[in-house]
């Protein structure tokens, strides 16, 4: 997978999300309708791999250097990220509705293929929701603005919005981060070190609202144009789903308001950053509960 592919697929995913949630106008939108059919007991399992991949991506690619001195900096980056989707992300255990046996059944997540079919009384059967996304890896692209450095501190912004007419769900992404250079507190060190904190919010349509929080420590070493960097990150990501079940029987709540968190909490990262004057190219690999490859191209000083 090369950087161009990540960018192409990441941009495609934004487009895909718009298509998924809006196409055709006034008609059903595929993913929202798929979700609305799922009970509160099942929807978190169906969407958990989506959140894991989404949070793996969104908590990536903040910076490629720990060197934050008091020099003026302004930079715009386009960041591409991709999370690997394994076969284990394609299935989960779900419980069918009444009157079928209330036993867990292995069936497709949003990344899986066909939903399982269970047999019930009098020859009746029930099919679980089918998977809707076909991906070996989950790509995403985000724009990022970095401004600084004031008192060895820089601010990071991520922002994306899509607002169509009343038939089209809005997509709103906003992120805010703060990074601080720490070398000033330790005198001479063989590497540059920095710490950062980031908060991001991503809302799609009426039913999906996701928040991402991360804190990281980072070290880097410059070798002429090339910078090697690495770090550790703690992160917490949460998805809220709020919708009315497309139909519900007495044993199910018709209003679903459910929050669940990503499986990613800790990650280690290592990467390379190439500084070519006003052009900056960076890539890193992130290892945690999910593996993320991130790359960016940026312009600025």
């Amino acid at each position, binding site marked *: 997978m090369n950087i161009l592919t990540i960018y*192409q*697929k990441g*941009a*495609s*995913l934004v*487009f*895909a999300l718009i*298509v*998924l949630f809006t*196409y055709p106008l*006034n*008609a*059903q*939108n*595929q993913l929202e*309708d*798929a979700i*609305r*059919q799922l009970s509160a007991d099942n929807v978190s399992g169906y969407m958990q791999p989506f959140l894991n991949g989404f949070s793996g991506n969104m908590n990536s690619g903040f910076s490629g250097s720990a060197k934050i001195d008091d020099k003026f900096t302004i930079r715009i980056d386009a960041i591409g990220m991709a999370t690997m989707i394994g076969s284990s992300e394609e299935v989960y255990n779900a419980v069918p*509705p*009444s*009157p*079928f046996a209330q036993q867990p059944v292995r069936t497709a997540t949003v990344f899986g*293929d*066909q*939903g399982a079919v269970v047999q*019930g*009384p*009098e*020859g*009746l*059967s*029930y*099919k*679980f*929701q*089918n*998977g*809707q*996304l*076909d*991906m070996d890896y989950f790509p995403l692209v985000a724009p990022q603005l970095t401004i600084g450095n004031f008192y060895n501190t820089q601010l990071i912004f991520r922002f994306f919005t899509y607002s169509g007419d009343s038939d089209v769900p809005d997509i709103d992404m906003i992120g805010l981060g703060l990074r601080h250079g720490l070398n000033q507190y330790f005198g001479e060190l063989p590497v540059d070190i920095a710490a950062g904190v980031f908060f991001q919010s991503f809302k799609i349509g009426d039913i999906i609202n996701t928040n991402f929080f991360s804190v990281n420590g980072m070290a880097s070493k410059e070798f002429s144009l090339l910078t090697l960097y690495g770090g550790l990150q703690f992160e917490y990501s949460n998805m809220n789903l709020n919708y009315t*079940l*497309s*139909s519900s*029987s*007495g*044993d199910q709540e018709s209003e679903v308001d459910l929050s669940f968190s990503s499986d990613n909490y800790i990650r280690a990262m290592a990467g390379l950053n190439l500084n070519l004057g006003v052009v900056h190219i960076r890539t890193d690999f992130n290892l945690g509960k999910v593996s993320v490859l991130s790359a960016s191209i940026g312009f600025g000083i």
Partner: protein
Amino acid sequence: MKNQRKTLLGLLAVALLYVSCDDMLRDNLVMLDAVSSFTYSIDTGDNNYSETERVNLQSVIDDIDGDVEDVSFFNITMLVSDIYDSSPETSFSGQLTARQSGTNQSQAIVNFNNIKFEDFFTEQSIFSDDIEGISVVSDGISTLVDYYNQKPAPVVDFTVAGTVNRAGGEDRVAFDFEVRLYVQVATDP
């Protein structure tokens, strides 16, 4: 000329994105649950009751956006939604039957015997083992399955008829009795 090139490049980019995007979507149907419900308002001064509701089974399918590829019936539930001034201890017995509109042949779906109102204050599947006194008629379920296999699904007269057994000594017994038919609709979005 420059603007034309830009437009062409833009269209090409959108086309590439659409092709990539299309690769990400599975060619799978979306399964949607849908429900047809109808309510009998029963008010009787004697021990017998009989009410009929005409239901167009196709209407719930027509309400689905997207191309409907398949419809399958999977559950039927009953609920006493209001008993007015009647005693919750009052029980009722009877039968739910279905008859396709324009035909003479009725088919029993479920028989119920001595069911207390209070046992149906929450929605109950007729297949549930939780309540005694309910017996499902297999041929009736097959008939419902067949109705939904028809294209379009037919208009059906559902009749509930039977007797009430007063527990509170009231002159009249009034209650609302709701029946819900659950189907799964496979749609091509």
